[in-house]
């Protein structure tokens, strides 16, 4: 056997039968370039990843024309990070970037200029709102925006379909080595569920914080071993826009009526039993369902095994009084939820893949019994639109809508039959986000409709004497009030593609004529 001398001065075999070729030791630092070489020198400063400016971090990451940058949307309407980073990238003269944010809100208006100037060429997002959405709906971009669901985004990132070069992740608390969490600091946002996926899979990860804390920052949501650089700034968000104190229960009598009816539907559906699980989506009526469910749970001594999703103060309250045993939280909607995720042992942060990635070995939406979701439009095939408004302009988000609709045992859509003079129940939705075959029940202020593919649910609701109609009947009721709307003035240009959670394209959105 041939022996060679390695860097430690020892003789070792180069090849061993049955094992194969062996690599001789070449020195402690030779093969681990990320380990600091100064180790042992007592005069050097403590090892940390903090760089002075965002500009330096961007340059150190090697960001170049045509690359993909990513962000999360946990700061919602209060986000400073996307605009801050994109302004600096633009000043550096980097162009043709793909912007992959888990979502975008109305505070991201400055992106319009970056698109016009060619800094941003493509956008991946769950949602678009405000001026940016309006401009895009009028044909601002040459390449259509790709709209994905929260689960679909996690799938795209984990399968490598969406490859992120640099993730810029705002974090409400962070230590100098990159352990970060979302529930402490002045910009606290609670769960960092969407950011965690980016941190795990991006080639380079830059954390941006306004709250540097002592090492080690436990418990952490983003682990130090994933982080390249850290930048400290004055503020990563406006607390007013990040989260309100506690999500106020709607006082709109119509929303309360819908919520109460929805809770009756859930109770009689066959899915309301001890140990059931539930998620309520955003929107006044959907959130208000929680309150009516609580009464029914107390009345019948039913406890929920877990609540999922966007977590609110109502869910936290029910958890703390023992009605909901566990909380799985991908996004915390208000400061009560932020407090709870920091304090409550069984209020657990989950990432977007665990939440809803359809291709991993088991996302939690599959374990969901009941979900209550909003809709802008729903058609007689039960397809749901939550992205384009009645004027054809993008003003919403795909979110977890299609993920939870298919994963849950019972998907309940709550919506007023008519908004202003716009009917909600129509022949064909403007844009399909969630396919009708995954939607079970529609609850409106004028009655309930059950998808014909769920006859057993229909029977139970009828037996309970709930006001059940066919969805065609509800559509006619709506039309009688509003009249039949004229078709929207869409142009030729395709401004957005809607990706279903599995990566296939379920619909597209055309530009709206001025």
């Amino acid at each position: 056997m041939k022996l060679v001398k390695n860097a430690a001065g020892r003789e070792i075999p180069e090849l061993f039968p049955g094992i194969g070729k062996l690599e001789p030791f070449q020195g402690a630092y030779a093969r681990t370039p990320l380990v600091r070489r100064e180790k042992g020198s007592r005069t050097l400063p403590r090892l940390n990843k903090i760089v002075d400016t965002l500009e330096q971090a961007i340059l150190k990451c090697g960001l170049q024309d045509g690359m993909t940058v990513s962000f999360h949307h946990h700061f919602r309407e209060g986000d400073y990070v996307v605009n801050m980073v994109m302004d600096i990238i633009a000043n550096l003269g980097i162009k043709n970037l793909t912007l992959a944010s888990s979502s975008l809100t109305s505070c991201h208006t400055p992106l319009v200029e970056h698109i016009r100037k060619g800094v941003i060429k493509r956008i991946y997002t769950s949602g678009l709102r405000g001026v940016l959405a309006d401009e895009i709906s009028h044909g601002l971009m040459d390449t259509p925006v790709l709209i994905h669901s929260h689960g679909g985004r996690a799938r795209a990132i984990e399968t490598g379909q969406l490859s992120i070069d640099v993730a810029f992740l705002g974090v409400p608390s962070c230590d100098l080595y990159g352990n970060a969490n979302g529930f402490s600091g002045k910009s606290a946002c609670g769960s960092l569920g969407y950011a965690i996926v980016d941190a795990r899979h991006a080639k380079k990860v830059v954390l941006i914080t306004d709250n540097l804390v002592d090492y080690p920052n436990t418990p952490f949501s983003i682990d130090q071993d994933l982080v390249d650089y850290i930048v400290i700034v004055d503020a990563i968000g406006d607390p007013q826009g990040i989260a309100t104190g506690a999500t106020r229960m709607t006082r709109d009598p119509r929303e309360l009526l819908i919520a109460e009816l929805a809770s009756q539907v859930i109770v009689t559906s066959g899915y309301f039993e001890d140990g059931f699980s539930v998620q309520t989506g955003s929107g006044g009526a959907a959130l208000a369902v929680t309150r009516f469910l609580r009464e029914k749970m107390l009345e019948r001594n039913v406890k929920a095994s877990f609540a999922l999703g966007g977590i609110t103060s109502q869910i936290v309250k029910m958890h703390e009084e023992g009605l909901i045993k566990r909380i799985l939280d991908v996004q915390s909607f208000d400061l009560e939820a932020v407090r709870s995720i920091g304090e409550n042992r069984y209020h657990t942060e989950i990432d977007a893949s665990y939440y809803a990635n359809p291709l991993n070995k088991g996302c939690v939406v599959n374990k969901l019994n009941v979900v209550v979701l909003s809709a802008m439009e729903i058609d007689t095939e039960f397809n749901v639109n939550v992205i384009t408004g009645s004027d054809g302009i993008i003003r919403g988000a795909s979110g977890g809508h299609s993920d939870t609709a298919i994963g849950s045992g019972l998907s309940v859509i709550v919506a007023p039959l008519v908004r202003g003079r716009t009917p909600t129940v129509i022949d064909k939705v403007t844009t399909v986000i969630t396919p009708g075959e995954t939607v079970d029940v529609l609850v409106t202020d004028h009655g309930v409709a059950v998808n014909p593919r769920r006859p057993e649910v229909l029977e139970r609701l009828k037996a309970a004497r709930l006001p059940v109609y066919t969805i065609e009947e509800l559509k006619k009721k709506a039309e009688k009030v509003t009249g039949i709307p004229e078709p929207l003035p869409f142009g030729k240009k395709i401004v957005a593609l809607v990706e279903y959670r599995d990566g296939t394209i379920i619909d597209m959105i055309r530009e709206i004529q001025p």
Partner: protein
Amino acid sequence: MRILHSGTAGTLESSDVMITVERNPEKGLIIELESISEARFGNRIREVITDTLKKLQVQDVKVRVQDRSALDCTIRARLTAAVFRAAGIEKYPWEELE
């Protein structure tokens, strides 16, 4: 009905409409429509206005419509009230109104 001066009815609340009627020094009907439902219900709103004015036998008027997604019945009611005010009529023939 003869329009004497300008008359207004309605509010800018959601689901309501504010309508101002005044004389058109030229001949004919001018409708200035500002509506968030314009794209899908603009024609229908104009139809309701024209139709209602015809029934009230009003000609040569300028109608300013600030619509906040009102239903047809609301538009008819607000327009009728605005016309009566513009015509200086304070007694409404309730039985005859649609």
